[in-house]
């Protein structure tokens, strides 16, 4: 029997039992829709996060932090990075262009009767500007020689309600508060600063770089208030070649006797991508289970169908059909169910992804999730690659065929005499 004839014969058989075929197909539709929706949303989510990360990033930077907890006994207790360590780096590592020490504390800002939680960051404004283009003024001008009581506000700090109602203006005084421990007793400390600049909105997570929910004070003031220990040193390289990044990272690590960890922005992005690949596989796996259930449904219904059509199979055999012809007919039915189911499933999957991206992640993209790091609303556009679509289609058909194999084989193995006698 020719393939096209087998197919049209199978099509006639499927069409005869519309409801049953529709229900069987529904299983495949749900499975494929789930796979397509989850994969495209996962990809969309990954893209969104990557974009957010990149906003706060400069690709040619390294972040140096003390490698405190991770060490395997090699770390001396009480190892700290000091603000002066920047000089060591710039003098010893020729790949380095600029170095900025960062001191940061959690604290509050108080303007009038409004109080907000912020991250207080001490940096050298001039150098910081060179590294991060996002550190630029919306109002005011970033001072090159700031006085000790100068503060720069992140966009979201100045405008916490996101409606252009500022908590204070340029040159206004604000209070910064934080907690210190004196003899194990927490004491609140507060100082008065004058607002020099309100930054442009940055968006993103501000990972390593400037963020909308931070306030910036001169590094010298930070040293006076918080001490010499710095939380991280940001290093800008002369270029962003992988080789430069690796050499410089290695040199910096050696410089501090392997007691620091050096993270490149690129490495973080790579890590995020790896994590997301795993998450996507996991999601697809969950969706795959529903397809497995659909497959069992196909097998079930096809076994019933083979039993019902035993006599028909006998007739076909009496008319000269070989075992493989019978097999071909029943597999064609499975392929048909798989094809229709997958096509519809892809359609529904795209629809589901669209609907979810609009409603399902609203809370996630809004203020609740990443407020502390200061993010603006994140939109997740589902991403559909041709590979996802072709893959889903292939997978749907493959599962259908796989589960149709056994019923088809049973049909093919029927003895013509017995099949013809079957009532």
């Amino acid at each position, binding site marked *: *029997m*020719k393939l096209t*004839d087998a197919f049209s*014969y199978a099509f*006639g*058989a499927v069409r*005869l039992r519309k409801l049953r075929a529709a229900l069987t197909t529904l299983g495949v539709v749900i499975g494929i829709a789930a796979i397509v929706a989850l994969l495209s949303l996962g990809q969309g989510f990954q893209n969104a996060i990557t974009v957010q990360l990149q906003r706060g990033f400069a690709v040619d930077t390294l972040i140096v932090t003390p490698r405190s907890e991770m060490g395997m006994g090699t770390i001396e207790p009480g190892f700290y990075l000091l603000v002066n360590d920047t000089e060591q780096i710039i003098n010893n590592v020729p790949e380095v262009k600029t170095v900025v020490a960062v001191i940061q504390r959690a604290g509050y800002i108080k303007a009038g009767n409004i109080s907000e939680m912020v991250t207080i960051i001490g940096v050298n404004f001039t150098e910081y500007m060179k590294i991060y283009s996002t550190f630029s003024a919306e109002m005011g001008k970033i001072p090159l020689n700031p006085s000790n009581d100068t503060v720069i506000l992140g966009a979201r700090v100045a405008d916490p309600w996101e409606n252009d109602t500022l908590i204070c203006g340029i040159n206004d005084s604000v209070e910064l508060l934080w907690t210190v421990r004196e003899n194990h007793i927490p004491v609140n400390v507060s100082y008065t600063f004058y607002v020099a600049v309100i930054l442009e909105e940055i968006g993103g997570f501000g990972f390593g770089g400037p963020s909308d929910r931070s306030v910036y004070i001169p590094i010298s003031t930070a040293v006076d208030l918080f001490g010499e220990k710095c939380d991280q040193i940001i290093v800008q390289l002369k270029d962003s070649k992988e080789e430069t990044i690796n050499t410089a990272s290695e040199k910096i690590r050696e410089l501090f006797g392997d007691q620091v960890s050096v993270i490149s922005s690129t490495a973080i992005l790579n890590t995020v991508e790896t994590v997301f690949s795993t998450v996507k596989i996991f999601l697809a796996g969950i969706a795959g289970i529903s397809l497995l259930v659909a497959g069992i449904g196909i097998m079930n219904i096809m076994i019933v169908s083979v039993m019902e059509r035993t*006599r*028909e199979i*006998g*007739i*076909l*055999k*009496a*008319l*000269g*059909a*070989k*075992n*493989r*012809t019978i097999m071909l007919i029943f597999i064609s039915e499975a392929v048909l169910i798989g094809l229709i189911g997958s096509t519809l499933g892809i359609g529904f999957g795209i629809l589901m992804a669209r609907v979810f991206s609009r409603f399902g992640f609203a809370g996630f993209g809004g203020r609740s999730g990443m407020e502390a790091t200061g993010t603006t609303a994140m939109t997740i556009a589902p991403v559909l690659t041709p590979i996802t679509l072709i893959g889903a289609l292939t997978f749907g058909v493959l599962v259908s065929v796989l589960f149709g194999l056994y019923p088809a084989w049973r049909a093919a193995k029927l*003895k*013509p*005499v017995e099949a*013809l006698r079957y009532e």
Partner: protein
Amino acid sequence: MKPVVETVNLKKTYMLGKVPVHALRGVNLKVYPGDFIAVLGPSGSGKSTLLNLIGALDKPTEGEVIIDGIDISTLNEDQLAELRRKIGFVFQFFNLIPRLSALENVELPLAIAGVSRSERRKRAIELLEIVGLEDRMKHKPTELSGGEQQRVAIARALVNNPRYLLMDEPTGNIDSKTAAEIMKLVKKLNEEEGVTIILVTHNQFVANQAKRVVYIVDGVLKEENT
């Protein structure tokens, strides 16, 4: 002249649970081209078993079925299937595929054999004209009378140009008037088209239409020339 089908000491034993049932106990039969043989016997006499064996639907327990000079017990399943394409079957309950039209039912053996669409359509129409159903071609079996359905079945059996036609109680499920018409057609096919026919029945009237009648009782043949 060589027989188209020949059985030599043909035996078939079934196991009914643990009890062996000897359906055929050594049947010798020769069918020559142009023959019209009726195998007459009561139910349970083994006539359907004989028909299944000479239709290559089943293999003998002992003895030989030689179709066109080939012993069928030497053939594998695929070869048997191909052999069946040279044999036309007509069943008591017509055994048409209900969802296919008369025309499509007649085309089916050709489709199975891999004949092209246009070729098989032409051939099927030819056969439906021979059995007198040229104006009922688009009808489904359920829209046809018993007699018409059996005509479709006969057309289907002949569409492959078979070496011989096997008929299992072809009039068993239709009224006597229609049965007479069907038998007239069968006789005409044998006499005018030269179709070799082996017919199994328990109906004396039907058997009498044949050129030669053999009786089967308890799995043994008794010949009687008419």
